[in-house]
């Protein structure tokens, strides 16, 4: 029970509260009075003349250029047809007229309107995206007969070199409601497009502009009377990629009709000059949503056009891996420049015979000639002395078995096996014989073309591993392009200068030496250092390999070639893989050769060849 004293204060408090609330309500009433009685006349007029509407002004998306300022991606105007139901009455007749003028079936319009049940009669409903110039002309000419029908202009993404560098550039797609809900895309609204893949996705923050808007007064027919307020849109920033379009085109031309990838890197900073992956896809198909038929086709293609093979393709490195074996062997003191060995064409290990690719053997070889001629037996022995775990340690130190850290998404890390890994993965102990396969880059080893390019660049530049990058600079309107990220060194090769000198010499001899496996790709006036590789897709018995008829396409070996040039002071490092290309020296190496020539010519390091006579000369050489 509440006692007397308590009752007293309770009463005082409650009366106070009642007064407080009454006064608060009086203030609210006074405000109503002010708005509705004193200013009511003005507001009534404003609401009648009705009215103020918001028009959003799209911001244009940033353009994409190559390193030399060649335009790769721009925006072209696209015309859309919309209708404001309130202004279009009678709606049915307007739609019929519109359908007659544009030859677009009436049912299309009707379905768009039905789909928009929730919207108000005052907001425009989009009837058709991307109408043709002819349709635009006829609608504009008869706008008087088409009340409430609006034509809006919208910038539409245009990929100038369709299919070229498609994996790198990527494409756009309409944002979905889940993405909108995450709040990661401030200022983006339903129906807007965002980067979905490649550079368009990872550089979204630069490319995306900020939508502006106008507060406008319109008359009864929806026509603009005056603009009350404007917030200017902020256009997206232009992005300069590190790729060289001329080189990119050259690489893609040479890859045409094949499945494979080419990566070229500037060894002095990690700039990616070429990133080609074939087969490719046409990004223009993705604008406004790709048709499900096309999408299914892309996914069903066995050569996986949607995968960027330069960062997602994982292949056995094959003989190109001998670089690692040689490097580890030298550093661990297992071999030196003068270590000699006899190759009879095969090597007996335990109760198995491991063969050299050259059936009748290389005879007496030293480290340099073993690299030059890609002698398997020599490296079986080096690998055997090193053991799998020492090899793996060096391979990881050289950047293999882990992502390179390029800006693009979904980069694969490849695989460098260790004995612990095998135990974990298969529950089995490592067999010493497997080390022999690993030493020549077969077995469990997997690398991506980008990893090999980064490694090649590091061998060439004296041991520095750079994080490969595709973003050169970003440019806001009217400003200078700004490099947003400096070249980044991720580490050094685990090798001394002496070791590197030996390896560089071996690689040089692969092209420049008399017995080099890639001697056919020499260029006059410059020395190239490289390494061929033939990756077994399918291991088979020797006698099967010696059949006369060509192998099934899917069973043919992958052809690798990596190189850098000029050999003494490289400006470009290249890695090429041709899936099922079989012959490294005649299928993969020429691709690299043409790129080297094109790039060095462009840089003025070699003379541009005059075509007719030189071609005949070349034939003589071969």
């Amino acid at each position, binding site marked *: *029970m*509440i006692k007397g*004293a*308590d009752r007293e*204060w*309770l*009463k005082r*408090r*409650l009366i106070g*509260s*009642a007064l407080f*609330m*009454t006064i*608060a*309500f009086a203030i*609210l*009433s006074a*405000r*109503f*009075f002010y*708005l*509705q*009685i004193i*200013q*009511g*006349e*003005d*507001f*009534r007029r*404003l*609401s*009648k003349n*009705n*009215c*103020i*509407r*918001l028009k959003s002004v799209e911001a244009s998306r940033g353009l994409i250029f190559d390193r030399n300022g060649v335009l790769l991606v721009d925006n072209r105007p696209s015309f859309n047809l919309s209708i404001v139901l309130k202004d279009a009455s009678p709606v049915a007749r307007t739609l019929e007229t519109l359908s007659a003028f544009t030859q677009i079936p009436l049912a299309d319009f009707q379905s768009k309107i039905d789909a928009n*049940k*929730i*919207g*108000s*009669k*005052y*907001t425009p409903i989009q009837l058709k995206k991307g109408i043709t110039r002819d349709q635009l002309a006829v609608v504009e000419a008869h706008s008087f007969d088409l009340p409430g029908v609006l034509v809006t202009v919208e910038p539409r993404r245009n990929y100038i070199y369709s299919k070229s560098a498609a994996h790198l550039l990527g494409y756009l797609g309409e944002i979905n409601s889940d993405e909108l*809900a*995450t*709040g990661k895309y401030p200022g983006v609204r339903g129906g807007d497009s965002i980067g979905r893949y490649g550079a368009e996705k990872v550089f979204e923050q630069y490319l995306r502009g900020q939508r502006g*808007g*106008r*507060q406008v007064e319109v008359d009864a027919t929806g026509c603009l009377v005056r603009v*009350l*307020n404007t*917030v200017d849109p902020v256009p997206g920033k232009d992005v300069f990629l590190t790729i060289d379009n001329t080189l990119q085109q050259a690489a893609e031309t040479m890859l045409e009709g094949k499945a494979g990838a080419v990566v070229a890197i500037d060894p002095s900073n990690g700039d990616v000059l070429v990133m080609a992956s074939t087969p490719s896809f046409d990004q223009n198909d993705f604008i406004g949503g790709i048709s499900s038929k096309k999408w299914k086709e892309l996914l069903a293609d066995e050569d996986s056009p949607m995968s960027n093979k330069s960062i997602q393709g994982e292949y056995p490195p094959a003989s190109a891996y001998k670089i690692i074996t040689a490097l580890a062997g030298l550093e661990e003191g297992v071999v030196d420049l003068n270590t000699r060995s006899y190759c009879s064409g095969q090597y007996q290990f335990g109760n198995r015979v491991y063969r050299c690719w050259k059936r009748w053997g290389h005879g007496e070889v030293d480290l340099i000639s073993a690299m030059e001629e890609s002698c398997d037996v020599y490296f079986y022995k080096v690998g055997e002395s090193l053991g799998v775990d020492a090899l793996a340690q060096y391979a990881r130190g050289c950047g293999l078995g882990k992502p390179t850290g390029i800006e693009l998404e979904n980069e694969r890390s490849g695989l460098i096996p260790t004995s612990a890994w095998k135990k974990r993965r298969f529950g089995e102990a490592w067999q010493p014989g497997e080390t022999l396969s690993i030493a020549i880059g077969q077995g469990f080893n997997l690398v991506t073309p980008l990893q090999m390019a980064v490694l090649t660049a590091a061998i060439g530049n004296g041991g520095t591993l750079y994080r490969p990058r595709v973003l050169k600079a970003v440019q806001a309107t009217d400003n200078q392009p700004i490099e947003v990220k400096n070249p980044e060194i991720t580490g050094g090769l685990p090798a001394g200068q002496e070791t590197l000198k030996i390896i560089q010499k071996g690689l040089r001899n692969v092209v420049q030496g008399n017995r080099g496996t890639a001697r056919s790709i020499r260029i006059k006036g410059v020395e190239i250092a490289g390494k061929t590789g033939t990756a077994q897709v399918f291991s088979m018995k020797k006698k099967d390999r010696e059949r006369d008829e060509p192998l099934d396409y899917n069973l043919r070996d992958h052809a690798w070639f990596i190189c850098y040039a000029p050999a003494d002071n490289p400006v470009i490092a290249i890695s090429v893989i041709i899936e099922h290309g079989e012959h490294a020296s005649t299928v993969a190496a020429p691709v690299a050769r043409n790129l080297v020539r094109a790039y060095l010519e462009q840089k003025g390091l070699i003379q541009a060849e005059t075509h007719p006579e030189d071609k005949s000369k070349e034939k003589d050489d071969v």
Partner: protein
Amino acid sequence: MMFDRRLIECFDWGLLVLTLLILSVGLVVLYSTVAAGENAVSYVLFQKQMIWMGMGLLIMFASVSVHYRHLDKGSVAIYFTCILLLVIVLLFGKYVGGSRRWLALGPFTMQPSELMKLSLIITISSIYSGVVGEKGVGFRDIIKPLIALTIPFGLIVSQPDLGTALLLFFLSAGITLFVRVRKRVFLVFIALGAPAVPLVWFLLKDYQKARILTFLNPDRDPLGAGYHIIQSKIAIGSGMITGKGFLQGTQSALDFLPEQHTDFILSVLAEEWGFAGCLFLLFLYLVLLLWGLNISYSCRDMFGSILAFGVTLMIFLQIFINVAMVMGIMPVVGVPLPLISYGGSSVITNMVGIGILMNISMRRFASN
């Protein structure tokens, strides 16, 4: 339990009539907003609102048969159930417009933060009813209510829903002032609170800062919130004395407000029913509030008195914040108009609140 015949005699018919009147006003206005859309989808909103009101009435009637003193005993359980719901909503809640406020229950969604309002009132009333004395409450008495406020406050701020969190704060502060605090306590809190204001500013999300800046200067954001406030004022002002008439509003038809059936519903009423309509609603509300205060006065135990005051204060704060917001004299925070705005959690919370008032009212003469 024997049912006291006096309970039925003392049933608060006036309060029931008053509530039904306000609910009817709400339905009429909601009908205007859904009719403006002119399509089947929006009528679903109207039907849903009817269902919620029906549910609210059922809960209201069902709850009056249980003596409110059980709320006192069960306050801890009620409180922690609500806290649990708030934690669940943070973990599994539906993400709408950048915040997690809703729990999905089949076709319906609910906002645990709404229920938390009532739960906090019950908890704080229960705590204070044991400690009030002649001198007012001291530092030690304030610790428990402070903790009881801080937990849900933090959980709701992280949804984030600053509007509801601040409402909880004002509610607790109001009840504390109501039961009287010692002067020292009051002064210390003022001294501590004043420097906290700039601190809070840094804790606000960007969109919340933007709302406050826009409130201070509507021209700052003519396309966003500033546009809504201007349009809301046009709608209210254009109603003039008697309004444009039922379903004759044009501003609402223009879809200028994203939340015209929830937080901005009052501008629709003001446009169609004018100054007269607004005054009528404010009058109904004021009677309801005074009725609530009177129930607090006539109650014969401390818990009931504080509880009745708390519920009344909750209704008052929501009304004041919402009305001031749509008229542009307060920043836009998501506080609905009690018994009028569309929304199940809000309707049910307020009706349960009124149910509590009825519960206390009909036992004013009953012996313990």
